């Protein structure tokens, strides 16, 4: 118990939200502070945004990233409404222009994984169905776009704007794949569901690998054309990053609205007690399929964007790592909360890259290549620390936080 006590106090001590609100509280106590607190966000956030915007060239990527994370955390936490969204939007739109190609690629990856996270969060966070094969839907979307548009199959239509036609097609296809997966596994719960979905993800990858005639097998599909917007070709990572960013916005908007409706309520009820939900009139089969289909559609859309960005896809792009990474960012960020998922994507995808130029050079300690050599070790340690100190994730939904609090109360051993 003593150990549990000290750990939980450590956990409290390291809770960034605590300092955030305590700092704000102390600030509010002073008269000047009150004024700052009242109008502060209008000054502080733009300042931070400008700092972040001056960004890479001035502060280096590491500080820019740190500032971006802080701004995101502040905005996501405080729900500062339209103003916050505008600042955030401006920052996300402006920043990539200050970056080099490599950093732009990272921004694209973060946005893409945020999009996938939003999709998986519908399945895992809202409906409580542990899906370890999310990559299957991502792969379906990516390969649909690749196969329809790449010239190496003779099919290779001159697609022009057809990215925008394939996108909804891929979402529908992925949703159907989601339902196809959902129907046989619906009776399974918990661990069993996780194992079957895990297998499903692998089956899709292996199928793509082996069906040479259709997918060109392990050689992959090349020369996938870029999308056009009007007459402009969206060829660079920045342009495609904006496409994904827009996708994130639409998906987050849709996901939050569904969560706040009768549908989201039914999912919550299923997560809490499936049988009781059914006996209150919820068609649990249909609602679980719905969650699978929505999550899959978002994943499929992400796949199309990935395909367009990479210009080439290979079966090996769609291995288990993708599913695990997406699930990890959902859990680290905070299950059930779109805002948490976005933060999780920034940390999980961004941090390993930012850590590349991390070094320690104090007194007689010179570890110049610390980040380059050990970044994944540092990253892994950070993930373990988050899970120990904040098992509910960085920005959990109100409900998930309640569930974890409940677990603490029930079982002090579990809480340690």
């Amino acid at each position: 118990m003593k150990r549990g006590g000290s750990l939980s106090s450590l956990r409290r001590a390291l809770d960034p939200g605590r300092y955030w609100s305590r700092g704000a509280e102390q600030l509010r106590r002073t008269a000047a502070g009150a004024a700052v607190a009242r109008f502060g966000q209008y000054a502080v956030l733009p300042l931070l945004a400008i700092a972040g915007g001056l960004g890479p060239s001035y502060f280096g990527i590491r500080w820019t990233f740190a500032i971006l994370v802080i701004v995101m955390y502040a905005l996501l936490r405080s729900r500062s409404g339209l103003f916050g969204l505008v600042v955030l939007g401006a920052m996300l739109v402006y920043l990539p222009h200050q970056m080099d190609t490599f950093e732009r690629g990272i921004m694209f990856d973060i946005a893409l994984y945020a999009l996938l996270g939003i999709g998986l969060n519908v399945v895992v966070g809202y409906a409580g169905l542990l899906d370890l094969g999310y990559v299957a839907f991502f792969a379906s979307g990516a390969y649909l776009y690749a196969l329809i548009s790449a010239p190496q199959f003779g099919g290779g239509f001159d697609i022009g704007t057809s990215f925008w036609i394939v996108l909804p097609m891929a979402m529908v296809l992925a949703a159907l794949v989601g339902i196809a997966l959902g129907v046989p596994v619906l009776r399974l719960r918990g661990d069993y569901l996780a194992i079957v979905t895990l297998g499903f993800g692998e089956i899709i990858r292996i199928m793509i690998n082996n069906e040479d005639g259709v997918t060109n097998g392990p050689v992959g599909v090349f020369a996938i054309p870029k999308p056009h917007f009007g007459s402009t070709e969206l060829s660079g990572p920045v342009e495609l990053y904006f496409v994904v960013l827009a996708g994130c916005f639409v998906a987050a908007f849709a996901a939050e609205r569904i969560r706040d409706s009768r549908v989201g309520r039914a999912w919550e009820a299923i997560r809490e007690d499936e049988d009781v939900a059914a006996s209150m009139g919820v068609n649990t089969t249909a609602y679980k399929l719905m969650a699978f289909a929505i999550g899959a559609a978002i994943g499929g859309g992400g796949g199309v964007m990935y395909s367009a960005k990479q210009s080439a896809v290979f079966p090996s792009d769609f291995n288990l790592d993708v599913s695990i990474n997406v699930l990890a960012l959902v859990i680290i960020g905070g299950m059930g909360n779109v805002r948490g998922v976005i933060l999780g994507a920034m940390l999980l995808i961004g941090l390993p890259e930012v850590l590349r130029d991390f070094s320690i050079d104090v007194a007689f300690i010179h570890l110049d290549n610390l980040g380059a050599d050990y970044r994944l070790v540092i990253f892994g340690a950070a993930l373990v620390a988050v899970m120990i100190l904040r098992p509910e994730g960085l920005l959990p939904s109100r409900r998930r936080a309640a569930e974890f609090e409940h677990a603490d109360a029930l079982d002090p051993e579990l809480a340690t």
Partner: protein
Amino acid sequence: MAILSVRHVSRAFEGLIALNDVSMEIEPQTIVGVIGPNGAGKTTLFNLLTGFYRPTSGEIWFEDKRVDGLPLHRIAAAGISRTFQNIRLFSNMTAIENVLVGSHLHLSTNIATAILRLPFTIQQEKRAVQSAVETLRFVGLAGRENELARNLAYGEQRRLEIARALAVRPRLLLLDEPTAGMNPGESIDMMRLIRGLRDDLKMTVVLIEHQMRVVMGVCEYITVLDHGEKISEGRPEDVQKDQRVIEAYLGTGALLSEGAS
């Protein structure tokens, strides 16, 4: 015409016969008690009526519709709703959200209308919230709307289960030990509430109950189960005098010596 008709229903669990050839008819707008010693099969009967179990044999008819074997949500849609002996609220949802889940069948929002949030959808949701608030007030939980279900007091949780079941707008409501763990004062409130269900909401109520004071006070008709069989039924005062019921509850010398041998 009976609203519920249970016809020769049996249920066995791998050889253990939990319910054996039980038949009963329930008239509309009555309050019926199901009593019996522990393990008599009362909750099994409820689980059969609401689709949690399928009968091994026999039929269950509700308002001229055969309901045994239907999936849970179809039985709810048919007009049967229930509470649970071991409270099964959605404990991390608020009181009002629990009730809103109960009103699921009477709302129509789907994915598309949820995303678009049309005026119609907003209106419907508003009405649902309003009626949930009224339901909570009806069971005596006014002002507790936004409390998490698991933070409610025990008696309040029992009431919330009833509110959630009422939101389904059933014509037949099954209450599994509604006064379990309540003090005498709370029990009296609960009896008043149960009478209100019939008188104000025109419902048929079947309840499992151990407190004889409650059973005798509120039920117009009683069915007695023992070892999975129906051993008696009738008006409370008749059942009280039934020799078989007294034996079931108190045992007899003959039974005791038989058990000892």
